[in-house]
């Protein structure tokens, strides 16, 4: 770079800096000019108005809540009669104790895909299971519709089966896209439900699986799939009539 080039370059830079300074000055002047005395006053009015509204709301809201709280405390103090409550609670406790499960019961968590075998409040065994996929299947002419959810609520073990066979329901054929057979024999499939099955009503079972890698995931059509070892233990320990709580 020659000396003249350098001077030209410096001049160019200086010009750019000057331009930037001018632009900054102009914008700041324009910004300040917006805030004339009148406008500033309006802004202050708006701001104070907002503060008053906000503060008023806060105070009123809090006063209402506090009043409601005081009323509530007074009501609680007056309404609740000790003796009546004790009597009622005692009766109810006895009734519930009678109905609560004695011995083993099963708790199935469909969200976490876990099954726990409990006795009183103690966990005896825990197993990874597969519950309903929650998918929807509709017949092509939309006559029938199935939601593959594991039912929730309280159930009981109604029957225990050894070497169970699967009698395929209609949805299995519709899902596969094959014709629904007329004879029962054509519906029978062996070896897919594992070594044992515990039925808990409406065609739902706790049974074994060939797809052990999918245990812990929601993949079934509503039944509860269990691994072979866990299933054998359940079959051994759980008698007919055992309560099942599914949530």
């Amino acid at each position: 770079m020659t000396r003249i080039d350098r001077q030209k370059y410096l001049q160019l830079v200086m010009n750019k800096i000057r331009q930037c300074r001018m632009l900054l000055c102009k914008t700041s002047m324009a910004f300040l000019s917006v805030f004339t005395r009148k406008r500033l006053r309006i802004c202050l009015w708006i701001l104070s108005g907002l503060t008053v509204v906000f503060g008023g709301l806060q105070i009123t809201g809090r006063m209402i809540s506090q009043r409601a709280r005081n009323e509530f405390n007074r009501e609680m103090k007056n309404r609740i009669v000790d003796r009546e409550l004790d009597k009622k609670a005692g009766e109810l406790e006895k009734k519930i104790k009678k109905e609560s499960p004695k011995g083993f019961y099963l708790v199935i968590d469909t969200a976490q895909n876990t099954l726990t075998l409990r006795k009183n409040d103690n966990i005896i065994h825990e197993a990874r299971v597969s519950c309903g996929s929650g998918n929807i299947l509709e017949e092509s002419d939309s006559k029938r519709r199935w939601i593959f959810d594991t039912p929730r609520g309280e159930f009981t073990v109604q029957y225990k089966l050894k070497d169970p066979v699967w009698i395929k329901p209609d949805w299995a054929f519709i899902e596969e896209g094959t014709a629904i057979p007329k004879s029962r024999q054509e519906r029978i499939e062996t070896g897919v439900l594992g070594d044992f099955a515990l039925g808990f009503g409406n065609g739902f079972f706790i049974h074994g699986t060939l797809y052990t890698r999918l245990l812990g995931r929601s993949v079934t059509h509503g039944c509860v799939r269990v691994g072979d070892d866990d299933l054998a233990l359940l079959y051994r320990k759980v008698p007919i009539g055992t309560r099942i709580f599914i949530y």
Partner: protein
Amino acid sequence: MKKEKHIPHSTLLLLALLSAIAPAQESTDIVTRFQKYQHTQELLLAQKGQPYFICDLTEGRIELKTKGIVLRKWNTDYTCLSGDPFRPDPVNLLAREAASLPQREHIKPGEPPAPAMTRSGRFRLTSYELEDMPDRYSLFFSGQVELKICSTEKDRKTGLQRFFHALTREMTIPLRTVLSRLKGRHYTRIDCALPMADDARALFWACSDKTPWIIVVSLR
């Protein structure tokens, strides 16, 4: 000259002590009675045999129960009640609201869903699973009670976000309280943070519409 009678210091001290104890005793009585009342309400629910939730804001826990048996328990990190208090009577869950609600997949007949293996070695499924549930949502109950659930794991905000969140909260809650009072109704909002996102999702999964809840608030 007549001698003035003085009350002994020990008597004064005793009186002061008694006056201090009396209100405390009274408030303890109310709390005990309140707990008994809540217990009776819970027993009445348990008797019906259907599952129910106990959301105890004083203890910081939510329990899913049936017949008095605890099926699942969630501990809360933080709870905050704003608006009107209410009696520990059962309230029914009317609706669940979230930014994105999970959708169920429709199976096409003849094309059963086959699990595909992902790179991480996990099967990709077209099912309705826990991870599809929202971890930030609102539950609306009968009696104008709103329970907002989030997780502290996922709900990490910057300082500015926290400021704006607090500002909107402080603006909306008194406004809604005043508006509901003008309409002659009550309004209660409970903010509740669970430690893990999966806990919040599992709670969303577990609660279905019309499940009864008992929400226990502090008397003070």
